[in-house]
């Protein structure tokens, strides 16, 4: 039995070194990816660092990050492979002029060989030779259901069949991380093939640590003040709740303006860093004017 504590401590340490503050739950999930060799499905509100987990995992494992950004209409040609038809055409025309002795079968094998194959992210991950890469399938909920079904097949066996080349088995099983913002319900079949982790907004202490870790030059009091305000903002009835990435943007903006403390004026000037909706803007502006916005509850 390999005890998890050492494993988790090692993941935690490398994540911290790479500027990502995690919690035990996420660390355990990352440990289980390795133990069970199953994909990990991360769900949570926008801006809480789902994509960042995959990026940091790749850094921590010192391996390649291969990203597949999903969108409506994404198909196999854009996700898996495509033949480079233009290059094939040029090759055919060039070989027509030469009087070589190659048979039709040999010519066909030439045309459908690796050099004419355009590898897309999934195939690239399967063909990685050095070490198991981290395959990030980002915003899977944006892809069509047909693509989701195709993905099931690929992730179940970690092998892909290309009619002209044969079956390609993954050299190393990639660490697969899928992220979703829940714009639509994913199929049960896909969910069952994945480990599941819900990432929510961090608590006060964790958010302060994140700010200080990502922006080492930030004043401690300012980091606490920003976090305090952001925690309060997330309790308000806004249309668009700001995430950690907005906190970081705001903090970075304030640091670049050499601010050491938050006040009414500077809050109003930098509101656009974390408020992205007109109604929310008006509500926060009103609170700033009334002097209740920067009031500390901590």
């Amino acid at each position: 039995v390999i005890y998890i504590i050492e494993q988790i401590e090692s993941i935690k340490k490398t994540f911290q070194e790479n500027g990502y503050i995690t919690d035990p739950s996420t660390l355990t999930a990352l440990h289980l990816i390795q133990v069970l060799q199953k994909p990990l499905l991360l769900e949570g509100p926008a801006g809480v660092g789902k994509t960042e987990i995959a990026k940091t995992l790749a850094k921590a494992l010192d391996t390649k990050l291969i990203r597949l950004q999903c969108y409506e209409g994404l198909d196999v040609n854009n996700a898996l492979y495509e033949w480079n038809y233009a290059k094939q055409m040029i090759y055919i025309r060039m070989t027509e002029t030469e009087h070589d002795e190659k048979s039709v079968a040999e010519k066909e094998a030439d045309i459908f060989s690796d050099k004419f194959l355009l590898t897309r992210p999934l195939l690239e991950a399967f063909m990685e030779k050095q070490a198991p890469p981290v395959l990030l399938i980002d915003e899977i909920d944006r892809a069509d259901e047909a693509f989701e079904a195709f993905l099931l097949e690929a992730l179940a066996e970690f092998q892909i069949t290309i009619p002209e080349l044969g079956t390609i088995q993954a050299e190393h099983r990639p660490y697969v991380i899928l992220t979703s913002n829940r714009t639509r319900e994913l199929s049960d079949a896909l969910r069952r093939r994945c480990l599941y982790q819900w990432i929510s907004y961090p608590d006060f202490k964790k958010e302060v640590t994140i700010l200080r870790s990502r922006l080492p030059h930030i004043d401690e009091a300012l980091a606490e003040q920003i976090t305090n305000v952001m925690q309060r903002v997330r309790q308000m009835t806004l249309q668009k709740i700001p995430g950690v990435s907005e906190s970081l943007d705001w903090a970075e903006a304030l640091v670049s303006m050499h601010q050491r403390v938050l006040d009414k004026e500077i809050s109003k000037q930098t509101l656009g860093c974390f408020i992205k909706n007109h109604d929310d803007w008006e509500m926060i502006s009103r609170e700033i004017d009334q002097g209740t916005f920067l009031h500390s509850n901590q």
Partner: protein
Amino acid sequence: MMTTWEERISNMLQQETLTDHLVLFFRDLREEGFLIGSNEMTDGIQALQSIDISEYNQFKLVLQIVLCSTKEEHDKFDSLFQNFFFKKEKEDLLHFHSEVKEVSTNEKSITENNQSAESVENPEEQKKQSLPSFGFHIDKTESETDGQQEGATLYTALNAISKNPRTFKVKIPAHHFSTMEKAAEQLTRRFRLLDSRRKKVLKNGNTFDMRRTFRKSIQTGGYPINPVHTGPISEKSSFILLCDSSRSMATYSKIYLQFAYALMQYSSKVEVFLFSTRLRRVTDQITTSKRGAFPVLHVQENEWEGGTCIGESLNTFVQMHGLKMVNKNTIVMIASDGLDTGNSEHLQQTMREIRKRSTFIIWFNPLLNLDGYEPTASGMKIALPHIDVFSHAMDAHSFMELSNQVKVRR
């Protein structure tokens, strides 16, 4: 907590009951609607073998990550775990033991014959060796649960025994479903949306696509043998039902859920939420009905027959899902009597937001069927200016009437 857990796990290992406990726990989770099959069970056990099981948090986290597959499951896992491992009566497990022994006598004798005579002293080894019996136990329990789904609302046995927060099983009624299906089909037809100005490749498209034809001709040696045509993307309307499940509405809510289930037969874009003092997404529970049976929803005590905070609940919906789910093709249906105990300002703001984003809002209020009813409840008064149709529909026939009256062209 740690000492207690260590004692418990040590007892389970000494009495060789850890596997049985886990099987029973998996069964309870399945009754709660978790997607757990034999693969998940094997993964759960395999994952537990890679950790120190005397660590309470690790034990719980590992099972949570492996066994949960949605946020809703993730949220309720903690309490289910606590209830099972700390509050469940011993008699339950004893009963389970006798149940398993009766059925699996033959299998056990075969297993014993196959195993070597040497005794296994290590509890971990013992646990691993008992793994093959998992599938067998679960098959037995599954057939039992099917027989238990009688009646419209049932308390689960677990909660009745342990006096823990109750979980309700809400069964979607089957009566007059064919009429409800007709009404749903009719309604989906009444919402006709104009085709998008964006185009996509279509076999019978009306526009010749020169660029794609040339691109495709590369495959055929430069000869445009396969012309490509494009046509407009047809827009499909999506439906969102926000159903009030508070005490005053619980009787009617099942009908609205039945309507949503009927809509799902004709549209792939239907989302269903329950709200009382909090919001709960139940789309996945309605879509995952087994073998054509009517879906049974598993909801917590505070999500069914509780109080009402319409404004707060709808605001949570807008915050969590509004930006992604509500768009110009969305028909939002709200089923509520408007009796609100929450903040009216939230409702005002949220209704304005939903109005702005969606194409059509229908508000179902069963109280409209009462003679002399006036929408004077605070929630109703605020919502009325934002509503397109204020409907009294509360059974299959009135839904049919509604679908004949409504017509939207955009």
